[in-house]
């Protein structure tokens, strides 16, 4: 009886020591997976996924709370990268987030009253202008996140799709639906 207690005690103490050492040796600061997912996301901080920015969305993916197909700026390419990183299947865009044609914001300069509300909303500082002066969008900086559209009091911002030219055309991903024939 006593020797049994002694034997189990010895096992418990040894295992406890090994695990305690391992907990210190292999300590993980934060969640390294979040940083890896965050690096794949496009960093537009647009919030179209339903999360306040790219980092919160990355955290939600890492926790399994969010799907990988919610990021329109990342496009299908972004979903492919996320699926590769996480070892899951590719999923087409679903629900309310559909891939829109890549577009930039355009300010109708004759209507703009210079309220600066869109400047405050822009996550990438792509709008220039000052109070009571006309604003304009730097097209090359604009990520097409549409965050400037709702704050405008005179609705002078419209999203203009970028025309496909020989300069920006890319090969499309081949998509084959794998549904068994009935």
């Amino acid at each position, binding site marked *: 009886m006593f*020797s*049994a207690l002694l*034997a*189990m005690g*010895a*096992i*418990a103490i040894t*295992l406890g020591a*090994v*695990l305690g050492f*391992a*907990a210190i040796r*292999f*300590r*993980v600061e934060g*969640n*390294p*997976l979040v940083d*890896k997912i965050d690096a794949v996301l496009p960093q537009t901080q647009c919030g179209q996924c339903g999360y306040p920015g790219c980092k919160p969305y990355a955290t939600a993916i*890492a926790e399994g709370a969010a799907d990988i197909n919610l990021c329109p700026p990342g496009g299908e390419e972004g979903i492919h990268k996320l699926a590769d*990183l*996480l*070892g*899951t299947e590719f999923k087409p865009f679903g629900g309310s987030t559909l891939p829109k044609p890549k577009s930039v914001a355009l300010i109708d300069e004759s209507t703009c009253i210079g309220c600066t509300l869109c400047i405050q909303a822009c996550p990438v500082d792509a709008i220039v202008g000052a109070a009571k002066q006309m604003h304009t969008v730097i097209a090359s900086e604009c990520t097409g996140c549409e965050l400037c559209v709702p704050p405008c009091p005179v609705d002078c911002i419209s999203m203009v799709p970028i025309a496909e030219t020989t300069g920006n055309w890319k090969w499309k991903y081949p998509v084959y639906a*794998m549904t*068994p*024939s009935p």
Partner: protein
Amino acid sequence: MTTDYLLLLLSAVFVNNIVMVKILGLCPFMGVSKKLEAAVGMGAATTFVLTLASGSSYLINRYLLGPDLAYLTTLSFIVVIAGIVQFTEMVIQKTSPELYQTLGIYLPLITTNCAVLGVPLLNVQEKHNFMQSLVFGAGSALGFTLVMVLFAGLRERMEGADVPGIFKGSAIAMVTAGLMSLSFMGFSGLIK
């Protein structure tokens, strides 16, 4: 001497395959075999755990427990395996967060994988010495990995196959597992 170990290894991998012939460890076999990468990771983690567990459980059974405390065998093996799995989990979380994410709940569940408890108990039953225990443990784990990888490959192919509606998903996987088990019976004449 070397041939004995080689035969023991071969018999553990093919003839007495832990999953297909002894029907142990079916939970991860069905659960983590949907993706090839996950199956390989699970196989590697189980190999690590199983080899360590067979070695340390032999030492415990031989030097700590002995014949007087033989009734503690199962209890102490479970404690040791739980400890080793915890250790493995920490190592994987540090070295490969993607694999940690992919394996998910199945990683701590290696603790309750009956293959991992079964192999040390079989070692005791067969009166293996230390080296034999290690070889048998590693062989069983390799057999487990082999079957996991084969089965994951089959299941990935079956995703695109034209399966009758009522057999879709787990049902056809079970049928496939049964057929694989039958085919592993063919190895039984390999070692006389």
